[in-house]
């Protein structure tokens, strides 16, 4: 084809004008199956690059090869929403000189749009792409290998990066429409063996739980929603990735059918549960920044009412048109909630980074009703604590905490507490939950934190919210 942008990865990197010290970016739509980050950074290392800033929408277990690239000085700075696995463990123990910058999904979108997070070269994996760079997360040929659905987290990168390289494992005939990433934003197209393993998208945080405690929590969360005052025809909803919050959808569905209530839209990471409700006519539209499983990825490819949004359109604080501003109810999980309703979803109770900020603070702040679902204890680890290890979502954004020992309502939302009590639900003081946890597990010893700052949590408005210190063994 005339004007074809297809080149080798090495050539694409040379053409990009990338220099030492610059910022490269990636999306995480393949989650645990991502192959792009490792492929590109390996190539950059071979080409002798040093001192790069890796700005990914998130990183997971699969990115442990970055440890070597950090040790060799190829990567010296990271910005991300999350870190898991061995990479997270090493960084928590002080692997990097510079702290990792953690942003929420909405916060990252805003920072890219405002220029606060400037991307020099974006390397964006796509399930299909034509020779000019029209790219999509949807399959467009029989040869499609890696399907991720929405490319929502990649869209700010595509739009605002100085130089955009699309990597694909399915080069299709022009025009690849409908497109997510426009050829007008793309400088080079690189064909690779595989951009990701789609079967691993629904790994990591996303579980369809059969755990009886999760099911109990899910049922309680559904009762909270139904009696909250926000369960009305035309309501909107988002669920987080925890087993209980995903399962809650099943129980809300039963009530929707029974009462003849329909939702106007579901937002966020879209799952098979949400697609099912939509196909049953219970949810009008699906607004999808990230397809969380194969069913969601297939739905977005074929259903006009299932639409992709960028992370800016999804959850930016600055843009009043972002979807979170229209969101009624969000169900979220937590590693820890404290007695002031502050939530930590990033750092484990052992002080080691093991999660992601995600859209947690974005949706909690802007929704009308935010519900945190978590067990009182995970093994011996308390989830309701006097003070969170790391602050991710401030308590003023959190309305209700559902545990198997009772439901705590933020005192600022006493009207919700009254409705729940009236419905016969067990509403308790959050201090009593923390005390109950302590009575079972005892008083934990202080964690062996060092003095080195290994992570900085930036809130969705761009301000520093908390610091993460290294953990010493």
């Amino acid at each position, binding site marked *: 084809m005339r004007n074809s942008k297809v080149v080798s990865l090495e050539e694409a990197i040379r053409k990009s004008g990338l220099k030492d010290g610059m910022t490269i970016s990636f999306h995480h739509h393949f989650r645990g199956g991502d192959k792009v980050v490792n492929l590109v950074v390996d190539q950059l290392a071979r080409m002798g690059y040093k001192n790069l800033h890796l700005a990914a929408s998130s990183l997971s277990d699969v990115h442990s090869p970055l440890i070597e690239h950090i040790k060799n000085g190829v990567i010296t700075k990271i910005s991300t929403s999350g870190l898991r696995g061995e990479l997270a463990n090493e960084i928590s123990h002080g692997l990097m000189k510079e702290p990792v910058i953690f942003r929420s999904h909405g916060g990252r979108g805003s920072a890219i749009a405002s220029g606060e997070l400037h991307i020099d070269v974006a390397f964006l994996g796509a399930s299909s792409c034509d020779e000019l760079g029209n790219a999509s997360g949807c399959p467009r040929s029989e040869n499609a290998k890696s399907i991720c659905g929405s490319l929502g987290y990649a869209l700010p990168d595509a739009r605002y990066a100085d130089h955009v390289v699309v990597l694909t494992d399915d080069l299709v005939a022009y025009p690849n429409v409908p497109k997510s990433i426009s050829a007008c934003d793309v400088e080079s197209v690189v064909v690779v063996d595989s951009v990701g393993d789609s079967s691993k998208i629904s790994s990591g945080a996303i579980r369809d739980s059969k755990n009886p405690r999760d099911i109990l929590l899910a049922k309680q969360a559904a009762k909270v929603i139904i009696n909250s005052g926000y369960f009305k025809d035309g309501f909107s909803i988002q669920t987080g990735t925890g087993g209980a919050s995903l399962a809650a959808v099943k129980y809300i569905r039963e009530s929707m059918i029974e009462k003849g209530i329909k939702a106007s839209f579901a937002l966020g990471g879209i799952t098979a549960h949400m697609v099912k409700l939509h196909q049953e006519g219970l949810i009008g539209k699906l607004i999808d920044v990230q397809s969380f499983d194969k069913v969601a990825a297939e739905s977005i490819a074929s259903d006009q009412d299932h639409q992709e949004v960028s992370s800016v359109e999804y959850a930016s604080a600055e843009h009043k048109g972002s979807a979170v501003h229209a969101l009624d109810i969000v169900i979220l999980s937590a590693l820890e909630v404290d007695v002031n309703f502050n939530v930590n979803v990033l750092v484990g*109770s*052992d*002080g080691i980074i093991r999660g992601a900020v995600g859209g947690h603070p974005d949706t909690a702040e802007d929704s009308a009703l935010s519900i945190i679902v978590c067990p009182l*204890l*995970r*093994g*011996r*680890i308390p989830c309701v604590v006097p003070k969170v290890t790391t602050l991710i979502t401030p308590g003023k954004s959190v309305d209700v905490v559902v545990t198997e020992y009772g439901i705590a309502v933020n005192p600022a939302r006493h009207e919700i507490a009254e409705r729940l009590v009236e419905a016969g639900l067990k509403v308790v003081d959050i201090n009593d939950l923390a005390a109950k946890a302590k009575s*079972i*597990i*005892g008083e*934990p*010893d202080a*964690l*062996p934190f060092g003095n080195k700052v290994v992570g900085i949590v930036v809130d969705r408005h761009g301000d520093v919210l908390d610091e993460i210190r290294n*953990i010493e063994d």
Partner: protein
Amino acid sequence: MEIKNAMAGTLESGDILIQVEPGKGLQVDLQSSVSAQFGRQIKAVITDTLKGLGVENASIKATDKGALDCTIRARVTAAVVRATGKDVWKD
């Protein structure tokens, strides 16, 4: 009290595996997923349970996956019953 090699418990999350061997004095070697916060407490529960059962000489290897105190006591007791042949529940 004669001690034979014995064990109780599993490596499941929320459980603890207790392995008892003959030893001089009480030695507790603990590996725990929550050692930073609870290692001290877990060792104390193991030692107290052993002493409560009259065990003064034994080497204990404990592999903990976040067990609660009640579970730890139950597993230590079961391991000691197996190690000594003395059924504390019956006798």
